[in-house]
């Protein structure tokens, strides 16, 4: 059993606060991803769990044991480093066996463990190679193998895919997911890539950086990937999760019932959202958020739709992105359309903002509670065109 419990954990380097008040429970066997912008301290938090960085204040338990002041080796964790951290002068076999020889493990047992890890990771033919004779993906597998042989309760991954090329990253990501399914160990995985976070995590911990970290604590939101996607707690989470990012439009609250909020956009367009904004004062300055894939194209004569003009069009084959200039916001409104689109740069385009897909954020940036008819993973169907 290796559940991980962080209680009011803080980290200061000198006078600089890098981790602010993190309390978090990671269940045994859970795959937890720390994600956030650069400088949010996600790697530092991982290294604090590993014991490579001291915890300034707060407590850390692993497997029910208080480990706050214990050295890394006494915590029952294994770590996979971004740069692989392989011993350059040792063969793949020795790299994996090195940590075991000193744990007074018998030679046949060491050999069995190394062979098993090599089987899992398809490293068998490479056991006598040196790290410099391996490709990046193979080195990463050796680093993972070195963690596996120790059969730890907790695996820690520090941006393990960031040195791999795009194709290999997808492949290794799937391998890590399979590994988690077969090993059933707790894993903490640090990445700045929200796609990795969404695809791998049982639960995502999104971390704040800078001023927000000092004000609200390091944790911006914790939840299942689709919770963060469908119910972002605030504008920062809404913007970080999802690619391209959520469109945000300044708006004024015109009316609110428990079921629906009526909004007026900057250019006078009226919109509505299935949120309960009754706690906000009337005429409050709010932000309407909608993801690019939820913006609909309106019929050409749609009088009540949001008007815009296509500035760029990106054709990706399976989808197209339209970047619209609209009086309702500065910058572009991004629209994702499946397949090809007939829209050319310069065309006038009118779009609709389906009310079931609209998010509303209060003046402080916090999300107003949404009504999702089919739960967070469902796809609410009704679309109110205004």
């Amino acid at each position, binding site marked *: 059993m290796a559940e991980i419990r962080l209680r009011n954990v803080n980290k200061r380097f000198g006078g600089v606060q890098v981790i602010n008040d993190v309390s978090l429970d990671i269940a045994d066997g859970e795959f937890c991803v720390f994600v956030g912008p650069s400088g949010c301290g996600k790697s530092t938090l991982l290294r604090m769990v590993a014991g490579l960085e001291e915890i300034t204040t707060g407590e850390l338990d692993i497997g029910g044991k208080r480990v706050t002041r214990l050295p*890394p*080796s006494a915590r029952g964790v294994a*770590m996979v480093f971004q740069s692989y951290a392989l011993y350059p002068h040792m063969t793949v076999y020795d790299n994996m066996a090195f940590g075991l020889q*000193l*744990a007074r493990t018998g030679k046949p047992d060491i050999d069995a463990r190394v062979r098993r890890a090599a089987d899992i990771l398809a490293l068998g033919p490479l056991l006598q190679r040196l790290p410099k004779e391996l490709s990046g993906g193979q080195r990463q597998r050796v680093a993972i193998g070195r963690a596996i042989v*120790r059969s730890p309760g907790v695996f820690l991954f520090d941006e393990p895919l960031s040195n791999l090329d795009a194709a290999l990253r997808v492949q290794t990501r799937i391998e890590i997911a399979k590994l988690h399914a077969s090993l059933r160990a707790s894993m903490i995985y640090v990445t700045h890539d929200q796609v990795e976070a969404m695809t791998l995590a049982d639960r995502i911990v999104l971390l704040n950086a800078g001023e927000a970290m000092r004000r609200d604590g390091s944790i911006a939101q914790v939840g299942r990937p689709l919770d963060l996607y469908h119910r972002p707690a605030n504008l920062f989470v809404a913007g970080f999760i999802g690619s391209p990012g959520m469109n945000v439009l300044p708006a004024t609250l015109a009316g609110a019932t428990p079921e629906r909020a009526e909004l007026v956009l900057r250019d006078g367009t009226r919109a509505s959202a299935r949120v309960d904004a009754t706690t906000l004062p009337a005429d409050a300055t709010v932000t309407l958020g909608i993801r690019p894939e939820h913006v609909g194209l309106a019929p050409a004569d749609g009088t009540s739709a949001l008007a815009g003009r296509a500035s760029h069009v990106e054709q990706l084959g399976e989808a197209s992105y339209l970047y619209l200039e609209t009086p309702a916001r500065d910058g572009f409104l991004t629209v994702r359309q499946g397949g090809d689109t007939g829209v050319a740069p310069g065309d006038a385009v009118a779009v609709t903002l389906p009310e079931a897909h609209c998010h509303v954020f209060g003046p402080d940036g916090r999300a107003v509670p949404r009504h999702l008819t089919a739960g967070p993973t469902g796809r609410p169907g009704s679309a109110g065109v205004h």
Partner: protein
Amino acid sequence: MAAVPVACTQDRAPAPPTLAESRVRAAWLFLAPLVVLMVLVAGWPLCRTLWFSLTDADLKDLGAARFVGLDNYTGEFGVLRDPDWWRAVGNTLLFAGVSVAIETLLGLVVALVLDADFPGRSVVRAAVLVPWAIPTVVSAKMWAWMLNDQFGVINHVLMTTHLISQPLAWVADPSLALGSVIAVDVWKATPFMALLILAALQMLPTDCYEAARVDGIHPVTVFVRVTLPLIRPALMVAVIFRALDALRVFDLVYVLTSNSRDTMSMSIYARQQLVDFQQVGLGSAAATVLFGTVALCTALAITLGRVRLEGAAG
């Protein structure tokens, strides 16, 4: 251009040089000054020494030198038959072996300390260099005074702390002299070793050490199994540098103990033959054998080092 057959180009104007040719030409142009300088300051004296070693040249009249073949090497009074020469060889090898061994060990310790993070590290690093920065003649003279049997501070301190009952003649006593010379050389050359090793230590990947910490590997094991193998190439270079220096040691020994047979090195022997006894032929022969010894040791060290490096890689 390169595809044009040679036979054709001979009839016409010479083809303009290819890119590779002009690069080679430029390389020689840049190398030329150094080559000329090396021939003048190293090649010429070396050849002249080689020639003199085959003659009976005398310092008073170099022009009267006669060719005597290998007499200066293997003749009745040849270098290789002189017990003093073999004693100098023994002294030099002992000096080089012991001093380089101690300097390597101490240098490693100092480098490991300086590699650690502590306040004022850069100041200490600079301070450590002081013995190396002082010219050898100056530091040797300084040590000669400190080791002086009557007025030296070393004897004074040892006497007042009752570690010795009577003053020791550090550089005159045959049983102490070579040890004293080695001690001073260690004092002087350890910083050089330490800095070369420190440079190697700072090139080491830090993440390996973090991985070892997470895996709970004992620091001593990490040092023996990770650090030492990784710094060995740099360590070998440092040892070769110092060994070559030690084999041709002259200034330190000469200032501390002059021509004493107890500490005489091969260089001192050559100087004594050539200058004091004015036997340029014999001195040149000694210098030539010294040159050969150093060259042999270098070749040996590089070959052995390479073999071992390949052994580690294979």
